Structure formats: C-alpha cells, structure tokens
C-alpha cells in the first residue's frame, strides 16, 4: 500500500516563538536518525559529514541558536553512521553564500532559528541547485522551502518534510521516513 502522509497546510507562528522549538539536543538526535533515511546522504571522500550551520551573522558573532546547534552536533558527534563536523557560517548575501557552498561542499545546511523568512528564502534558493540537505528547527522555514524540519505538536516532536523542495534538489528519502513525517505543502 502506498504510504499515506499528511499535508501540513497551515502556517506556524513566526520565528520569534522560540518556546515552540524542539530542544536542540533532540533536534540533532533526530537528524542523526533521519539522515540514515536519505539515499544520497554520503560524505565526499571522507567518512565525515560537513554541516554548515547558517546564521544571520550579527556583528558580535554567531547567534545563540547557531552556537547551540554547533556545539550539540559536536557533542553528538555522528549523523547516522558518519562523523559530523559542524561549521558556523554567517549569511551575508546570496552571491557570497553560493561561493561558500561551492567551496565547502557541505552535505547539510542547518538553518539557525534566528534567520528570518527573507534570508531563509534566499538560502533555499541558493541550495536548490545542489543536493545539500537543508534542515531547520523552525517549522515556518520548511514552508519556505527547507527540506526537513521539526515541530512540536501535542507535546511530542514531529518531523516535517517539504517533498516538493526535495524533489527539486533530487534528494531521495526511504519510505520509512515519510511514514513517520508530516509532509508540508509549500
């Protein structure tokens, strides 16, 4: 039987609602499990997955959300069967960011919760031409085109997938992940 999933037709509250976010530790642990469901989630050359944690880049350094993600990924150490190496990257403009992607060749772009919808849309656009897996702990970001995300519903975590965006980027999931997820209609 073909898996039947849900289309998430609604908006969640904006990025300011940090209390609605899943705890970062849980996000990273979920990503670690979910990555094993992504067919083309393979590091280039090494056994280590490169994770770029993208933040809006205030003058005084990475945002708290980005720092928390970076240190938690380091702490967890692995995404699936591969080692994980986080790197915090400030988003300046689309051109610079494309150059960063070309230079770093990451497998994962983890969007910091402080990114607003404009910057998120630009990052999604920059990532669309590659198979890099975009992920965010802000449900609204998934509606904007981030491939994987998380939401908190009825006191439990839910995985969100933007299938249309995944299709655009030719990211293929195993059916098991889709059956555990909520599909977001962009």
């Amino acid at each position, binding site marked *: 039987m073909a*898996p039947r999933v849900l*289309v998430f037709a609604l908006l969640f509250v904006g990025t300011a609602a*940090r209390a609605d976010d899943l*705890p970062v530790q849980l996000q990273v642990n979920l990503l670690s499990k979910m990555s094993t469901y992504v067919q083309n989630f393979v590091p280039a050359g090494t056994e280590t997955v490169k994770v770029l944690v993208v933040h809006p880049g205030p003058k005084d350094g990475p945002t708290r959300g980005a720092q928390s993600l970076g240190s938690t990924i380091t702490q967890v150490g692995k995404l699936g069967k591969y080692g994980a190496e986080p790197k915090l990257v400030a988003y300046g403009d689309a051109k610079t960011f494309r150059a960063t992607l070309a230079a770093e060749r990451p497998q994962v772009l983890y969007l910091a919760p402080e990114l607003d919808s404009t910057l998120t849309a630009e990052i999604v656009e920059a990532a669309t031409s590659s198979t890099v897996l975009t992920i965010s702990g802000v449900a609204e970001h998934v509606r904007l085109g981030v491939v994987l995300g998380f939401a908190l519903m*009825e*006191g*439990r*975590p839910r995985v969100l997938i933007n299938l249309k965006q995944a299709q655009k980027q030719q990211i293929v999931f195993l059916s098991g992940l889709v059956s555990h997820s909520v599909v977001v209609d962009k």
Partner: protein
Amino acid sequence: MPADVVEAPDAGFEEVDAGVFAVVFDPAAPDESGLEALLAEQVGSAASRTAESGSSAPGTTWSISGTDLKRYGIQSVEEAIRYLGHGMTSYEYDQRLNAAFGARGYLSDNIGLHIAILIDGNQAGGSAKTARGTQQYMMPIELVDHIEIVLGPGSVIYGNSAMLGVVNIVTRKGSSLEEAHVVAQLSGGTAADKWAKDATWGEVWGRAAVYGGTKLTWRGDPFDLAVHFAARWDRQQGRSAWRPILGVSPYADRFGAFEREDVFNRDVHGRLFARATWRKWTFMTTVAIGQTTGTGPIEASGKSSAFEPEYMLDAMWADQVGSRGDLSLRAYMVVFDSYATLVPVHNDAAKCRATVRVDQCADTLHYVNFRPFIEPILTWDWNRDGSQVTTLGAQLFLDGSVITSGVVATKGGNVDYDEPIVAPLPNAAAYIQHIWRAKYASINAGLRGDVGFLGWALSPRLAITANPWTNGTVKGVFSTGFRNPSITERFLEIENFLTANPNIMAEHVYSGELGVAQRWGAQNLQLAVFAAVWDGLITTRGIIVNGAFSSQFANIRTVWSAGANFAWQGAYKAFEYALSANYAPGRLRLPADIAQSTDQQLRDQRIDRTALDRYGSKAFDSVFLPADAMPDFYATGHVSLGMGEGRPRVSVAANLNSPRMRVNYASEATLLDLRNLDGPTLPWSIDVRAAIEHQVAPRVGMRITVTGRSLGTVPTSVRIGDSSAPLPTGGVGASTNPVAPLSAMLEANVRL
C-alpha cells in the same frame, strides 16, 4: 486517520499520497526503532520553565495529548488525571466545585489547594476556587494542545500549592485551528443515591462549545488568535443528605435516626477564552459567569444560590537581551466575584427579626477575590549554546479578598450587611535556577524564597539526570513544596466554634526520587521510587477558649510515604495505550506514646482511640495510621483502537484504587463503631469509561461515551453531608456515590 475526523488536533492537515516520491531503499540501514523512540519523547516546559525533553526534565513528567482528551470525552483536569494521568489519583465530589487529588502518600480533598494548575503557565489562582482548572466548565477543552504533568513538589518554580505536582494546560494557537468548530454534548446519568426521594432527573448535563482560530497580518506582523466559548448546564438530582437526629440511636432505628433530604443542583455556566500572539506579545483572557442553585451543594448545608462572574487578563512581553539573555515580563490579574445566598436548614427566627425584621431570612455573602501578578523572568545562556543556563524569576502578587456578609429576608427586600472585611495580602517571591547540560548528564539546581502576609517558605530542588545508554535515562531528584495557610485557616473566628491561630505556619513536603526510563521504538517505560515526608499538614484540633470548646486550624499532621510509580506508554499497529501503576501508601505519623493520651487529648487531636487500636501500627519509634482516602495502590490505563479509515475508533480508560479509608475516619466514633456495618474502609474501586467515535459526514463527527463507577470511587462520604452515618441497609455494598454510578454522553462535532 479515521480517529482525527472527530475533532482532530491536526485540523488543517489533508491527506495526500506521497508514495510516488518515496523510494524503498536498503531497509537494513535506517534505525527505525531509534527514530520512533525519539519521536515518542515527551517535550515540556513545566518542570523548569524551559523547553526540554522528558528524559532531561528534573522530575517524573507525563503528557496527555489534546487528541486523547477529546477521544475519551474528558471534561476537566480532574478527569484527565483520573483516566489518563500518571502518578496521581483523583475524584470529584459532586461534579460541581470540589475535586480531590492524591499522590505520593497524601490525598488532598481541600479543593485542590495542594496542586498547582496552570493555563499556559499562568498561575492566577491556579489551585484555588478561582482557578477553575479543576472544574469542567472552566477549561477550554477543545483548545487544549496537551496537558503536562510534573509529579511531585514543584514549589522551586511555582511556590504556593505546588505540593502534589504541577499541571500545565497548554493551549493551541489559532493558526492550528483556522476553521470554526462547533461541539454539542449531552449526558445523562443514573441517580447517585437509590434512597433519594426524587430520583427522576438523575444526573444530566449539556454543553456546547464554539471555537476557532485565525492568523492575520496586523501592522506587517502575524497576529495569531484563538477563541473558545463554552456554555454548560447541569441538573443533578437523585442524591440525598442524611442528617442525624439527636437522641435517636442509628443502630436501633436506622431509618428513623435521620432526616433525609434531597440534594440537587441546577447550574448554568459560560466561559469565553481567547489567546493572541503578536510580535513580542502574548495575551490571554477569560470571562466566565456562573449561576447556581441547589440544596446541599456545600456539604449538605441548606438551600443556596450563587452568581459568580470571573475575569482574567494576562499580558506577556518577551524579547532577547543581548546575545545571551531572554527576558519576559508578565502581568496578569484574576478577579473572582461571588454573590451567594444560603438558606439555613433550621431558621433562626430571633436572628432574622433582629437583623431584617422578618421571621424568615437567609445568610448572604459577597466574596471578591482579586489576584494581580507581576512576573519578570530572565534567562541567561552563559555559553550561548544551552550548556549553562541560569534563570532568575520573581513574582509580586496580591491575594486579595473583600468579604461582605449579611442577612437577607427570604422573600426579598430587607438586607442587613456587616462591615466588609478587606484583606489585600501581599506576597513576594524570587527564585534562581541553574541548568548545566553536559554530554551524558544534566544538573538542575534551584532555590525559591516566598514571603507573604500568611507565611514564608524556602523551596530548594536538586536534580541530576543522565543518559548513560541509548534511549535510557537515570534521574535523581530532591524537591520540596509548601502551602501557606489560607486566610480562613489563619484569621477566621466564629464564636464558640472556630478560633483564629496566629501561630499557624506553612505546610511542607520533602520528596526524594530515583528514576529510570527506557524507550524502545514507540514504547516508553519509566519507573521511579520515592520517599516523601508531608510535614505540618493543617487540620482542625480541639481547643478550650474561655472555658468553652472550640476548634482551631493548626499544623498537627505528618504523613510519611514511600513507594514506586511505573508507567508504560506506547503504540502497536492500530493500538495506542498507556498504563500507570503506582504503589504510594501514606501513613499518618503519631508519637509512639499516643496511646497514653487521655480521651480528651485524643479528641483534641481528632483521633479516636478505636482507630489507634484497630489500624495503628508501630515502627520507627512512632505509631502509624493509614492516611485518609489515599489508596496504597492505584492505577490508570487506557487503550484506543482505530479500526481503519472510515471506520469507528474504540477507546477504553479506567482508574483503579485499592481499598482505602474514608475521609476523616480516624476521628469519627460512629464510623468506627463495630455496629456500623458500613465501617471506615472502602473496597477496591474502579471507574471505567468507554468511548466510540466515528465520522458520519465529511465535516461531522459523533462520539458516545459510557462511564461506570463502582461503589467507593468517592471516599469523601457515605452520603453527601454526613460521613459518619450508618446506612439503612448497612454494608459497603449498599453505599452509594455522590456522583452517578452509570452515565452516558453523546457528542456531535462539526467543522464549519
């Protein structure tokens, strides 16, 4: 998702076939069990005011989903705990005002004063009558996303009343509702007391709710609004009060020794609840109005009526402070306004003539309770990565009352009011909490200080949680809780009946627990062993004032408890289930030489010598008696089965209690008399609810629930109003509950 067609929480989702895109690939590689285990994690913020998974929370936590609340036809926080909770047991006296909660050896039947019940973190009268969280008509059931339960004392964050646990009702956002919904419910139940003179109506109630939400753009930013309105009508009849006739032996003439009076109530309540978020602001408001009429609703007193409006407004602003801090400022206010008239059973004509110059009169009471709160909270993330987080919080609030009593002529007209008593009691509290999170373990340490007109308290907590193996958790928690005496317990004076106690102090509980939890796929198991000491519990004692006997509230009870809480929550194929099994015996601790006290000394301590002889046991240089109404063992469980798309869903929930003592048994000579066939003990009791739901049209769902209660599920009284009366036919089997033994509810819900 056939279950969700009936008022589904995920309104706004629609089903699509994604099979075209999903590709089956190497099934051996993914860790499906590990993913399921993480998705089964409960996430809450009630334990420490920060979002955290249940495995890292500083205490035993439990979550009840909004889906389950609707699935089982839950009407109140009390029902949610009774059927779906963990670690607690509960009952309601009369489906009206009074609910009782028990955990860790102590059962409080004191209108929920020993439990903190919050709505979205709002503590406005969370546990007192003004909270209404325990009352069916005050909770916006359909708007509840989930209920978080933190078992054990939580005064380190929530101060007064957080002794048994903390219950936080989390409401849904308007954006998750969008469409408007209508719910109509009608329930009928058998008469509670087969000896009632008039059992024609039994117990009937009806309820209607309208709710919905939206997300707009206002001044360039999203504005999220959720609104809920509910109205409920109750008619409860078929209960009776048995009033002993002085001088007639109940053992010689069981029927003739009592005046039998029908007890009924007719209530109408309405409540509007709204919640909005915009930019950095969150607003919440409620307006509730209730009109009640009855005979004997307050422990079988005379006929009474009350008009009770209630208003609440809550505004919170939250923003980041620098690169490390979050600051929130919250201000809220609740006003509970009650106009009550009480017609005494025996009219005092002399008093009536002296006050309102007629022979028939009633007492009247206007009671206004107002509670303004200001609550700043600063959270500081030292390393900007969540590894070292300090929270500083404060509360300034008034627990204010204006009480105006008087006498009113029964036929209206003349009223004689006393001078109003104005008591704006100030309170202040501050707390600090630090969370240190490392790779394999977390430490949560906190301390709160409360000072107020009625007392002070220090409430420390220390919790260590560790995840030493995959999906496994080990916890050690020491926590404390307190309750300040109420204004009544401290100040109330009634000549020749009650004497104020200037030395009364706060009650305390000290609790230690060790817990272990394991998740296997969708199965979530947790086990905690605990020990708790309830110290200085307040009850009345006898006292001689100017040569006359009187009563006085005082800190004279200590209860010890030790036991275990086990829970299993999970899903298998189309089944969803949970089981909570708890061993939590409570024992009243008395001095080792209590038996050497004189009969009068025992009476002053509200202890009957027969209770000591029959139920007392010696240990630890003390004498122990079973605690009132607290079962040694209790369990809740529920299972739900979805029969497939387009087919009904069937759900069953139950609450089981082991034999327990009636409330106040230790001081009731009549109840302890061997000739009283009913006796002070109650047998095993069970309360079962079965529900079936089905989508009958694309936007219409139906639900039927049937509830059965065995005898003894409500241990407060044999008959309403008299806990010591022997029954006409004797024996536990002839006892009745003050709530319907069998009831059924029909619901229709429509998405507009």
